[in-house]
């Protein structure tokens, strides 16, 4: 497989490499369900989860993925309340080099931070979310979830709804889904749609009924409370009224449309509990399961290419 040393984004992957990663991940889904978890693909390798931003679920998912492949997993949380802590980033890189870490999973609140680290560390770097840039493993696990239900990951209408402007999940999904030949729609108020995004081959809607019309997949994005104080959205109730995913809005989508959310959810803001917990339409819990399998596939692929 043509594969670079790091996974910094979906940018840099191609349909062939995405498909083979998803195939490998699919095999791990079966293995994980069988209960025969511990394998030795990463035995003797060290995986460091370096989180500059709190994220229990993503960190746990990578931790589990690493442990199921036999890696030694270490979690490092580095608080970065102040933006001037950037220097810590390169100091940390030097420390990790000295420890001979093999795989480095990085989450940072600044776009491009994992790319900066990748220039300085010997380990293979996996971007676990950087600022408002990319979150590639989330897009891969979304793709795997879609493929399991729809039998394909092309020719589908995918509506990504809500705070696209601040979403790295949206950017990685836009790249992956357009690359694989899907029709991607963005639905949200103009203040939450990034400038010039149409250039990436997506269609923008400001009305949920129109944006969801005939959609095969509906993805709701998390809306953070800061968006209200920044004046981008007047209030949570106004947002929910016009952009929150509820049964009435979902009725415009295809009858077998899947509902997805990258989590953690703000129930009653971007998604109604009624929809989030609907066992037929919602695949939100399955997304979490796919996350572990996809991360196992990513870790194994990078470790193979990184024979140190």
């Amino acid at each position, binding site marked *: 497989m043509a594969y670079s040393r790091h996974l910094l984004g979906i940018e840099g992957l191609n349909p062939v490499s995405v498909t083979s990663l998803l195939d490998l991940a699919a095999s791990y889904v079966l293995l994980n369900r069988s209960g025969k978890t511990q394998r030795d693909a990463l035995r003797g390798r060290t995986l460091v989860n370096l989180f500059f931003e709190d994220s229990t679920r993503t960190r746990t998912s990578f931790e589990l993925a690493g442990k199921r492949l036999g890696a030694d997993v270490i979690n490092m949380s580095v608080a970065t309340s102040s933006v001037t802590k*950037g220097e810590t*980033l390169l100091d940390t890189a030097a420390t990790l080099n000295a420890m001979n870490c093999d795989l480095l999973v990085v989450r940072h609140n600044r*776009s*491009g*931070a994992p790319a*900066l680290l990748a220039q300085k560390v010997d380990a293979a770097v996996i971007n676990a979310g950087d*600022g408002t*840039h990319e979150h590639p493993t989330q897009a891969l696990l979304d793709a795997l979830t879609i493929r399991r239900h729809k039998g394909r990951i092309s020719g589908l209408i995918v509506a990504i709804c809500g705070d696209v402007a601040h979403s790295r999940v949206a950017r990685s999904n836009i790249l992956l889904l357009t690359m694989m030949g899907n029709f991607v729609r963005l639905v949200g108020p103009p203040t939450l749609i990034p*400038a010039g995004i149409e250039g990436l081959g997506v269609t923008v809607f400001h009305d949920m009924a129109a944006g969801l019309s005939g959609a095969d997949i509906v993805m709701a994005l998390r809306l953070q409370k800061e968006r209200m104080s920044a004046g981008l959205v007047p209030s949570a109730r106004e947002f929910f009224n016009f952009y929150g995913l509820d049964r009435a809005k979902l009725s415009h989508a295809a009858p077998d449309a899947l509902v997805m959310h990258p989590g953690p959810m703000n129930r009653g803001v971007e998604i109604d509990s009624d929809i989030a917990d609907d066992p037929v339409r919602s695949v939100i819990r399955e997304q979490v399961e796919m996350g572990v399998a996809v991360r196992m596939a990513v870790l194994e692929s990078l470790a193979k290419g990184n024979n140190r």
Partner: protein
Amino acid sequence: MILFRNIRYLDGATEQLTEGDLLVENGLIADFGLGLGVPEGCEIIEATGAVLCPGLVDMRASLGEPGFEYRETIASAAQAAASGGITTIAVLPDTAPPVDDPAMVRSIVARGVETGSLSLLPYGAATRGCRGAELAEYGLLRDAGAIAFTDGQRTIGGTRLMRQALSYARGFGMRIVQHPEDADLAAGGAATEGARASWMGLPAIPACAEAICVARDITLAALTGGAVHFAHISTRQALTLIAQAKDRGLAVTCDTAPPYFDLNETAIGDYRTYAKLSPPLRADEDRRAVLAGLADGTIDAIASDHQPRDADDKRLPFADAAPGGAGLATLLGVTLAQVQSGGLNLAQALGLLTSRPASWLGVASGRILRGRPADLCLFHPARSWRVVAGQLPGKAQNTPFDGRALEGLVLGTWKAGIRVWG
């Protein structure tokens, strides 16, 4: 005595390139023309194909000193300037401490004299501490030698404050220099708004933040009768407004800097923090408009907008990295690149680097005329060199032009008849 023989020089009266000789005596330009005799004991510099122009007059640069000596000192900036043919620099006041006191103004001038190679012309702070609240002492600062007033890289944001600054400065016959960027729109931004910034996930500033500020300040200049100068103009929209204001006869001038006519926003690809500037690099359409503004005379000068930064300022995630690029050593070369590519003619390009900023600043240098100071730059327009960050003269290495091949090599720089480079 120095005799430059068989060169082309930029005649200060005609602003044309003329073939001939030029004689320097007692630190002044003594004579020039065809076939000057060789006085006894005279050093002869023969440079076929080379061009002799006035030492460059850079109307906008920060030098790191005082307060940021880890980035650059005046001595190291003088070295970089000499290598780039620059003999006069107007320096920004947003240092630490800021230049908001007459003693600071005199001290900057004296530090320039100490270098022996570079005249420093200090801008005074437009507001105390460049903090954007109360006016600085324009009269006292002017008498100490301040050439105009500005808050440097900070926009004079308050509309009432800007009105008062323009109005009060007019009483002393002084200009206000603005960093034209609507402060509210620009807060926290790191790149120009558009598909690229959206895709890279960078906090962005709409390009019209410049025109909004320019429109306001032109309106205030009309209201007050004051004179405003816009620094580093980078957008078509702002240039259109400035051209209209000039047509109306308002006291409005502007400059730009090489990154804004040589680079566009693609330079920040892969989060290259050396290309993070303030204002941020623009779309190519705006870059072409800046070039057109240089050619049609809307833009009055090319300044380096030199902003020294050290590696620790730049080796950070893009949004956290300090904006600014080193620009002294590359000012001439990048401008000449536009001559090579046909965007400007040579005499016009040199005028934008010498006589035009010199007239704006009201200094005697910047023109080849008899009796003027022999501040000179000899360069070969066809000899090439490559910009390499880490190997530039001086301390500041944060060039946005890293790797760029340039034609136009400085062979020598003279300050008052003394060779300071080459």
